[in-house]
């Protein structure tokens, strides 16, 4: 019975295992903070690219789209080089801290949020443009209006970003180091337990991770569907 992954997962949850609790909280903290920062930067960036014409705009769009598929280990390597003692930001002493993990995940999530919100805002702008110009709105004034009116689509985009952040292991492993009690998150713990041969525990952790992600997605889905139905 102890060998059954579902049993392990359940007993981990039921017994509120302290180290598991810590791992779950850290995972959520890192991913949610990363997604929040990426949203604050990425949504206005996406809207700006949708609104303004500038030389090299096509290049920016292609780059954002391509970076949606940036391999996490590459992002991790970049952040590692930046934050390592000899790197340009080495003095901050961020390497192997949750802060470094947040930075790596922001880099992974930002292109998704920017590229997808750019598409959505551009679509909306096509519908609203004449009315906006008629109202005498500047492009800077159009931006908050467009972002607010795209809110339901942005929530879905946000979930895609959160999915990428919470599922990712390569980057957080490289810049966090999977230090027990400091930078160990669910994905790195699963890698570690698997390599140790503790498969039921690894699988149990996997089930907990999956359940969490499902719960967050379900909540967001229900919220946005209700709101969408109300707003038409």
């Amino acid at each position, binding site marked *: 019975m102890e060998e059954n992954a579902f049993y392990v997962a359940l007993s981990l949850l039921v017994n509120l295992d302290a180290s598991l609790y810590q791992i779950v909280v850290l995972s959520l903290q890192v991913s949610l903070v990363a997604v929040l920062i990426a949203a604050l930067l990425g949504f206005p960036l996406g809207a700006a690219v949708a609104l303004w014409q500038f030389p090299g705009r096509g290049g920016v769009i292609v780059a954002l789209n391509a970076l949606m598929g940036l391999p996490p280990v590459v992002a991790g390597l970049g952040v590692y080089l930046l934050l390592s003692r000899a790197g340009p930001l080495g003095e901050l002493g961020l390497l192997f801290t949750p802060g470094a993990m947040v930075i790596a995940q922001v880099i992974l999530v930002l292109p998704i949020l920017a590229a997808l919100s750019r598409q959505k805002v551009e679509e909306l702008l096509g519908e609203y443009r*004449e009315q906006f*110009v*008629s109202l005498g709105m500047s492009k800077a004034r159009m931006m908050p209006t467009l972002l607010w*009116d795209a809110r339901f689509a942005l929530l879905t985009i946000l979930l895609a970003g959160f999915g990428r952040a919470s599922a990712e292991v390569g980057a957080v492993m490289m810049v966090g180091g999977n230090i027990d009690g400091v930078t160990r998150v669910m994905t790195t713990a699963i890698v570690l337990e698997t390599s140790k041969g503790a498969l039921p525990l690894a699988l149990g952790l996997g089930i907990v991770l999956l359940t969490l992600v499902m719960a967050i997605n379900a909540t967001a889905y229900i919220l946005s569907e209700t709101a969408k139905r109300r707003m*038409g």
Partner: protein
Amino acid sequence: MTSLNVPVNRPIELSAPPSLRFDNVEFNLLGHQLFGPCSFTLDGPGPTLVMGPNGAGKSLMLRLAHGLLAATEGAITWSGDQTPRQAMVFQTPVLLRRSALANLTHALAVNNVPRKRRAELAREALARFGLSSCADTPARVLSGGEKQRLALARAWALSPSVLFLDEPTSALDPAAIKDVEAAVQEFHERGTRIVMTTHDLHQARRLAGDVLFLAGGKVQEHTPADIFFSAPASRQAQAFLSGELVA
């Protein structure tokens, strides 16, 4: 484009509405001349109804006058020292994904109306157009007629001196058309210059003070409504009124 932004708190001019002058205005796109060259002045009491067959350039003319498009050649000028406050109502009303009330307060906000006055002005405009009960309804679930009335209420709240309407009733049923026409009359009585396109001859007869008849991107005639409907001068207008196809 930003010249459309005139403070909304300016008292409404009950005197003559500002006059609009097109001076050899042309609009070209990719080497095709889509409009003009045209010269005319709208300085009568109006409302001015812009008529003509499909592709005559009616919508283009409105967009040029309103500043949504820039003329390739020529000059579009208004009487007075500044561009008058304008609003436009489109064939398909463009409404934000918010409540009816929020659509109005948004328009007031972008026109720098102080926050405290927005809700009051917005509710006033909703009430005037019979939309009080829909204030908290999402604008995009309103019926076609209600949506167009909301677009008119939004224009009303901004107290424009000039109102452009681009076939505002072409997708509406007779009852909704009546509401829109009543609203246009109210704007007219408030001293707003009305420039409106329509395909509906009956509607033009009901509303028009003068008719600007376009065909082939050019003004064929600009005459008071009674003369236009009884004795149109241009061959195209004669053909249009008798229901023939106009090239």
